[in-house]
């Protein structure tokens, strides 16, 4: 039972990441009709916003002392400049680098999204999906190589704040034996964070005039345009918002997986499967499928399951995708006609 609870928690945390990326993908597909294969790269860029924030906070200044090296030269002894300037508060800022990186991630990713849409994607609106896929995939490779050129190929550790780095005692929360069911606190924070972002996006689309116009535009772009609304501008903004969501998902994920230039690709394929299973263009479907596939992936990795079906953990998501596409091509919550002939 304990193992099942832990796998549920794993699935929710993993599903949170899938859902956030899939939500952005669906928003872009629903508004602009573009299949954005560079979305994983946006997740990666967000992760590197956290890396940059930490690097900025840990930039060092020389203390004036020097130490000798094993190869006979001397190097300067350094200390982080924020510690030099603010003492303990500076150390606290370094410790909270990941949450603080949200302040950097949101504007940077909004700009990246805007620039991407205005500079490249809009030229492909009327081109076939195959060309959109090729150009966005190419862009993803370019962005990944740029990041590798600057930051190298190795993963870069970005720790969570010490206060959120311990274990959470779920057993004690539900009246069970203490220390029986424990779970990394940051992973739970990540789940709460992703759930919060998803709720904010849905509320924004549901209860604001801007959101209503966007939803109307997703249903019938031409009619909304005939009402004198510049739907194109709103869709550009939504593209930027989608980029920011992916970026936030990446930034907050850095304490879970040390980011490297390839982290976006690892999530991209899974997220597309999530979108297809949920239903192309269905925001609710993307979120539901994200969490569902996260949970399925976690359960499939249980030893009890693998003893019956060896290797199932590596194919479960694709297996579900095949079954859904065969039985219900439009996905679980997709609109009738989408992906159907």
């Amino acid at each position, binding site marked *: 039972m304990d193992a099942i609870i*832990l796998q549920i928690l794993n699935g929710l945390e993993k599903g949170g990441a899938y859902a956030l990326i899939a939500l952005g993908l669906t928003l872009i597909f629903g508004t602009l009709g573009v299949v954005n294969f560079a979305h994983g790269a946006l997740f990666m860029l967000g992760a590197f916003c956290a890396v940059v924030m930490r690097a900025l906070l840990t930039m060092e200044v020389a203390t004036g002392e020097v130490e000798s090296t*094993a190869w006979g030269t001397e190097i300067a002894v350094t200390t982080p400049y924020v510690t030099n300037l603010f003492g303990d508060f500076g150390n606290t800022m370094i410790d909270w680098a990941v949450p603080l990186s949200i302040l950097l991630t949101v504007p940077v990713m909004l700009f990246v999204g805007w620039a991407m849409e205005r500079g490249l994607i809009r030229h492909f609106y009327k081109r076939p999906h195959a060309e959109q896929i090729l150009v966005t995939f190419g862009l993803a490779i370019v962005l990944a190589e740029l990041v590798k050129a600057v930051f190298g190929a190795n993963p870069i*550790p970005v720790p969570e704040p010490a206060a959120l780095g311990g274990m959470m005692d779920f057993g004690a929360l539900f009246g069970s034996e203490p220390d029986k069911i424990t779970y990394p606190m*940051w992973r739970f924070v990540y789940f709460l964070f992703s759930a919060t972002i998803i709720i904010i996006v849905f509320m924004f689309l549901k209860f604001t005039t801007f959101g209503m116009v966007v939803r109307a535009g997703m249903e019938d772009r031409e009619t909304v345009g005939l009402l004198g609304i510049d739907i194109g501008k709103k869709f550009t903004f939504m593209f930027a918002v989608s980029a920011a969501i992916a970026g936030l998902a990446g930034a907050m994920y850095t304490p*879970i997986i040390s980011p490297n230039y390839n982290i976006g690709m690892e999530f991209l394929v899974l997220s597309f499967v999530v979108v297809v299973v949920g239903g192309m263009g269905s925001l609710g479907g993307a979120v539901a499928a994200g969490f569902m596939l996260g949970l399925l992936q976690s359960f499939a990795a249980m030893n009890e399951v693998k003893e019956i079906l060896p290797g199932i953990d590596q194919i479960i998501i694709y297996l579900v995708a095949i079954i859904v596409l065969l039985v219900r091509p439009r996905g679980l919550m997709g609109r009738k006609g989408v992906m159907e002939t």
Partner: protein
Amino acid sequence: MSLIKTNIDRRGVLKGTAAAGLAAPMFMNGKAWADAHAYLNAPTGKSVTLGFNVPQTGPYADEGADELRAYKLAVKHLNGEGDGGMMNTMTVKGGKTGLTGNGVLGKKVEYVTGDTQTKSDAARSSAKKMIEADKAVMITGGSSSGVAIAVQSLCQEAGVIFMAGLTHSNDTTGKDKRANGFRHFFNAYMSGAALAPVLEKAYGKDRKAYHLTADYTWGWTQEASIAASTEAVGWETMKKVKTPVGAGDFSQYITPVLESGADVLVLNHYGNDMVNSLTQAVKFGLRDKQVNGKDFTIVVPLYSRLMAAGAGENVKGIFGSTNWHWSLTDEGSKAFVKSFGQEYGFPPSQAAHTCYVQTLLYANAAETAGTFNPCGIVEALEGLEFDGMGNGPTLYRADDHQCFKDVLVVKGNENPTSKFDILEVVEVTPAEQVTYAPDHPMFTGGELGECNAGA
């Protein structure tokens, strides 16, 4: 080893030549040898070209970059530039090396580079290009066993020497060994043989181990080696679970460990997988647990300092093994660290070390054989005993072309004094303890075959 064989083959001819060399001056023997035997890419001008095939893109690109730095340094030293590095400390049994800083066999050493991308097919393509278009007489490098095995096989078919870079699978000099291939780096069996006694001393005999293993050739052989060596000291292997390469998030594989009753987690992962699985295992609180009345512990059998940096604080106190470490204080290591550090501003990795050493060993073998003919090189390297290269007295065993030397047991440094000080050496395991018979079951299934000179 007898120098006379009843069946006449290339190796037999070579051995006969070597025997004749005993009675003749070396230059005479080499010259006669070279004239008598044609071989692929025989250098005709004033230079000889070596092919450095390293991962320049892909997940091991940083390790590949360090390998390339080491190769460039080796070339510099061979051509008489710089301080000479390990050329000043290297000795071979029976005297000094033939390396004088005048190139190799009087020819200036030049090089071409290829990008393995840590993919077997890409590595074979770049090696093929260097052999066919650039006329490389030797291929070296790499940071993956899958790649090493693939390129070694290609070099055997083509008829050039392959001096492996970082490859740790038993299979490279086991079932997939080739006459034209040589490995200086240690292997998974050696890791197990060196680690097990240290683990026994640190954690006792009564331990239950749970393995998470990268699902490819290196992971399989390391899992088998570590399980066998720890079982030999009394540990029980509870479970062996294969994980997909590049899984990223290992949480679903770590969670069952908590329920398994195991009190040790062995992570047979390398590169990003190692960084992620170790970090996540620590964050799941495994090291804070008490199981079976003992503190839960984690073991990473193969460490890379470059990659361990990615795991940050999480490596502290965790045991593993490594081929070489820059903090060693023998004359060879000091000379290499000095050369490398002054050239690049930071210490070399174990990958850089093995690549540098392989280049000097190849060059010395050419000088000894008096030719770049692969069969002459094979003859010179087989059974070579050398020292002064950072690992103590070392034997290039003729039976499988594997180097036998001291192995380092390391652990994550609890109190690092610099950002390079990630690992600390806790024991230098003597070569005898990690030596195995050529017909050891973990290494059987393949034949070395005959050397191929390609012409």
